[in-house]
């Protein structure tokens, strides 16, 4: 955490290397969140672009009240919502985006994972945005329900409810399609 604060300090003083480091630390996580919410990797890249350019432009005035990770994730979520609000978003197949990777070194397992990921991405996109957001932020971004509730400006119990409903729907949609 202290290392992150050092990076923020250096960034506020115009250090490009600090900006590069922050970008490298968060880019994949933010892209995954954006792509999962938008179901469009090109749009997700645009979101990532806008978030970082805006982050850099405002670096001098940056006053973080939360962790840097939470700040950037919230920025991504807000920009995704903006795109939906402005009806700027058109759905594109997720597999046209960059590769989906797994931690496994086994090619067969990796292929299975990619297949599962595609199924999941398609299923996720059938959920309402609020439920998708809650599930992605909780499972993929590792945020607590309390933090998600703050982002969504709802009570924590509502966030938990959205999560439960969302997961139930996913189970119905996938109906055992996701492999172990």
């Amino acid at each position, binding site marked *: *955490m*202290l*290392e992150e*604060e*050092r990076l*923020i*300090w*250096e*960034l506020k*003083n*115009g*250090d*490009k290397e600090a*900006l*590069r480091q922050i*970008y*490298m630390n968060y*880019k*994949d996580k933010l*892209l*995954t969140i954006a*792509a*999962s919410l938008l179901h469009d*990797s090109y749009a*997700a*890249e645009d979101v*990532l*672009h806008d978030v*970082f*350019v*805006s*982050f*850099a*432009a*405002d*670096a*001098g005035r940056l*006053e*973080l*009240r*939360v962790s840097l990770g939470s700040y950037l994730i919230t920025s991504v979520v807000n920009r995704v919502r903006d795109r939906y609000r402005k009806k700027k978003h058109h759905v594109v197949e997720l597999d046209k*985006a*960059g*590769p*989906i*990777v*797994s*931690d496994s070194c086994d090619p067969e397992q990796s292929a299975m*994972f990619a297949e*599962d*990921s595609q199924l*999941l991405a398609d299923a996720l996109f059938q959920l309402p945005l609020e439920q998708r957001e809650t599930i*992605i932020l909780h*499972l*993929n971004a590792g945020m607590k329900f309390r933090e998600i509730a703050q982002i969504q400006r709802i009570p924590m119990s509502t966030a938990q409810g959205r999560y439960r409903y969302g*997961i139930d729907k996913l*189970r119905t949609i*996938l109906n055992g399609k*996701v492999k*172990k």
Partner: protein
Amino acid sequence: MNPLDHIERAIKRLHLITKAETDQRILDDAFAALEKSGQKQPHHIGRSAQRRTLGIRLVELASIAAVILVVFALFFGTPAAKAVTLEQIYQALDKVRNICVATFKANKAEPYQQVWTSQTLKVKLFKERREGKMQFILWDIPNGVTKTKSVYEDSVTTVEIPADRLTLMEKSIGGSFGLVPFSDINNVPEGYQWSCVEDQNVEAIIPGTEVYDLTWLQKSTTGTAVRFCKWRVFVDPATNLPKRAEWYHKLKIEEEYIFDTFDEVTYPSESQIQALIRKTFGLAVDSGRQKGNSKDYFTEVSHTKSKPPGCHRVIAGIIEGCAKDQACTKKDKSARAGAPAAVGGKETTKYVKKTKGREGL
């Protein structure tokens, strides 16, 4: 295994990676935005065209306003405000020979340490609480001794200073008085920020001063841990000398700074410091330039004169008065300025001369 478990695990494992060209494009644009941000230009990169237009309009308006202000200033001959730089403060302090620094804990009215330093006399006088007693400690460099006296007692303890310590103490007297965070301006860490505080409430603390903040990042010896530090200085714009300095710190960037201590500074003359020492210890102080390193540099005087009752309180009163009049003193900078605690002590004592019940001053 529960299918729900599989779904949750699968979502956790979702992971996209960016392409190299995407990284390059985003970083290029982000760097450009960062540069523009550093030049304090409008932040409109990556925003919509509408906001871009608004930004251009704002720049145009700002330009017009700036031209009007310049014309106004030229017409009325009003000089533009000239900010004091950190370098100017260091340069001004470098010329100071006699100083008094009173150090207070935040929100306390009484200083916990006062230090008078005279580089011309090569002396340093501390007033601080030690072992539950308010004491005066004098570093008498030309005579190579320290003298300690309790405010409410008459006895003076004299301790000879070992040669190696004497050198360090002399160096400390010639330093930056512990008033600035870094004894040498070249030691200010990279990335420091120097900014003018334009807040009337803050400026009102010491009227007639300009207030500046120096903020920097303090790293541990391993270079990993950090501490955010702030030094707020109230500068007399006529002399560029500090009249007050406040010390803050915080451990997390999102936190508010914690106000630790503050210094109030005055610049007494050599003769005022001489008089203070004379009144405290009953010593006549001559300029070191005249007597060099003579052991007679400080001469104990007028032992035969009778001291009026309660004289010690008078002395204390004089010193307190001086402290209040001149707002003299200094802070928890024992380490920075060289604390009296570093001197004396049983293990370093070569000889101890006690003058009990001295009479008169």
